[in-house]
């Protein structure tokens, strides 16, 4: 049992980290009332920037390259999400549609520029990706240390810590209260003197930053290069995590970890007696099936922020 856990937990952690980060972005955006189906595109942008930056500046930044790449991807991700913000907040665009366009645009730009810059459809592998490490001090704790803090990516814990930070910001600070108010009843927020549009811009930019971060973490811990097939569905899984987690940062984190667990089980199953005889196809679709069952059965109706997806037009009712 311990062995199984020991092989599952690190994989869950690295698999889930990009999903957690991106889902947190989704939580911010949707809590403020802006539907963000463009998480996939934000991840694509993040992966693209993370890889290109890493390839270009590896000589300059040395071992710090992956970290600097993450920052670059975070910033560019935020800037890129500005398009979604302008369309859906200032121009009252249908937010779902704008999100779909974000997805197409990110992939288009990423691959287009890859071809223009590198003259081929995919980049080389980076020389400065993230590597796993043992977390100092914590990895010395008996049992738990071995299970959770040995041979893990720091970025996984960055994701988990950010989930708690996001929870604190959303549920304990004035900023969070205002952000949620804007997503529930923008007009009420407005009459209380809160700048609805500004809050929403900030939230969408945060989702861009976190989506970019998630995409670059994926690229620099898992994929190692960028091509049209680097990000294929992780953004949608993150969106699922947002909803599955009931628009709550810790819920979203839990959902993302759950997806990681389901994926990991489908691989590890070969060595686990109970799982061994289950047909491969069942294990393959398990993450998706379980999500559906969970939504239909255990957690039932998830209440979205009430003003989610509704542009706020001053003076209309």
């Amino acid at each position, binding site marked *: 049992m311990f062995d199984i856990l020991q092989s599952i937990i690190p994989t869950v952690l690295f698999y889930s980290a990009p999903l957690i980060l991106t889902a947190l972005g989704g939580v911010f955006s949707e809590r403020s009332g802006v539907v963000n189906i463009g998480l996939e595109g934000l991840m694509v942008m993040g992966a693209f920037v993370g890889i290109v930056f890493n390839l270009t500046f590896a000589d300059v930044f040395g071992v710090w390259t992956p970290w600097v790449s993450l920052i670059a991807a975070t910033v560019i991700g935020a800037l890129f999400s500005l398009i979604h913000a302008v369309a859906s907040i200032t121009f009252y665009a249908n937010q779902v549609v*704008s999100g779909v366009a974000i997805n197409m645009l990110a992939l288009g730009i990423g*691959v*287009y520029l890859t071809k223009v810059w590198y003259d081929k459809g995919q980049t080389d592998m980076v020389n400065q990706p993230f590597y796993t490490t043992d977390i100092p001090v914590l990895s010395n704790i008996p049992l738990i240390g071995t299970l959770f803090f040995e041979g893990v990516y720091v970025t996984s814990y960055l994701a988990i810590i950010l989930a708690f930070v996001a929870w604190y910001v959303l549920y304990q600070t004035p900023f969070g209260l205002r952000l949620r108010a804007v997503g529930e009843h923008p007009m009420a927020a407005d009459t209380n003197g809160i700048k609805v549009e500004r809050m929403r811009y900030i939230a969408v930019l945060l989702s861009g930053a976190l989506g970019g971060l998630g995409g670059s973490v994926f690229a620099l811990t898992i994929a190692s290069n960028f091509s049209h097939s680097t990000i294929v569905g992780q953004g949608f899984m993150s969106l699922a995590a947002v909803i599955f987690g009931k628009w709550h940062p810790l819920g979203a984190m839990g959902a993302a970890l759950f997806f990681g667990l389901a994926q990991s089980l489908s691989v590890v199953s070969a060595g686990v007696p109970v799982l061994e005889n289950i047909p491969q196809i069942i294990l393959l679709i398990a993450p998706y099936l379980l999500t559906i069952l969970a939504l239909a059965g255990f957690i039932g109706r998830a209440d979205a922020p009430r003003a989610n997806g509704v542009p706020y037009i001053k003076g209309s009712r």
Partner: protein
Amino acid sequence: MTANNRLFGILVPVISVIVGLLAGAIIMLASGHNPIEGYAALWRGAFGDSYTLGETIRRTTPLILTGLAVAFAFKTGLFNIGAEGQVIVGWLASIWVGVAVEAPMIIHLPLAVLAGAVAGGLWGFIPGLLKAKLGVHEVIITIMMNYIALHVTNEIIRSILTDQATTTEPIAATASLASTWLQSITFYSRVHYGVLIALAAAFVMWFIIERTTYGYELKAVGFNRHASNYAGMNVSRNIILSMVLGGAFAGLAGTMEGLGTYGTISVMSGFTNLGFDGIAVALLGSNNAFGVVLAAILFGALKEGAGEMPTAAGVPTELVDIIIALIIFFVASSYIIRWALLRFKKGGNIDV
């Protein structure tokens, strides 16, 4: 007000397309390509001769259907992001019937087409049911259903339709939509009779939505669930119906690929993207049947023409994806276009 709205309804997409193409030209310039060459290649690739024209029609055909699939659900206030999965199962089912059944064409072909529609409908039924009965968010369920469709279809191709092969046998000629006549007049393009099915489907959608009591109910439920219930409509049934019919349209799109274009189905390592493109088509077409047809033609032509761009002008095909995305942004942000138009004709009083 109505006249003004109608004018906007036409102007907004047209302006969006123009601005999108302009943006594409700027991108080409910025990345060191000649936009005139690029667009000339695009045009040739889409409408250059009878062959490309045939291929453009072929490519447009499933886009019409996935566009309808998304638009139909939109009308009932539902977002069918699952057209992708419905396409896949529709494709699979039509091929299955095409391969496994032996019958004269008059039975076989309709049966195979129907199988595709039914499979897609079934794939829409599940999220519809969950939405109607348990209030589960259809977006997330349809996303999950897409993946399930992909994996299950691959498994069926490998283990049931073939003996661990990656592609099925071609369907019997009696189930094929291919047309030697259409091919012969288009220099062997793959245009097939499916385009007639797609156009008929557009007409059916228009008729259901605009002219029948079913459409009246579907739209009412989309606009206001409570009032529909108050008025005695069965809200659950309408939600399910909408997803099922939307799914059936998407299933037909898969059928077009199966019975029309390829005649087989292969193990897929990723999505067809027909379903996702359908979202764009539905939007540009303002969710109405006629608009969807026009939008599908535009996107079909852009995507078909893109193939000519790398060889003829050195422009990566992804430029077209960027252009399409930008067009969608502009349409979605039509407020800015309306605002600009109103500014433009300022002075004239604005009647609301």
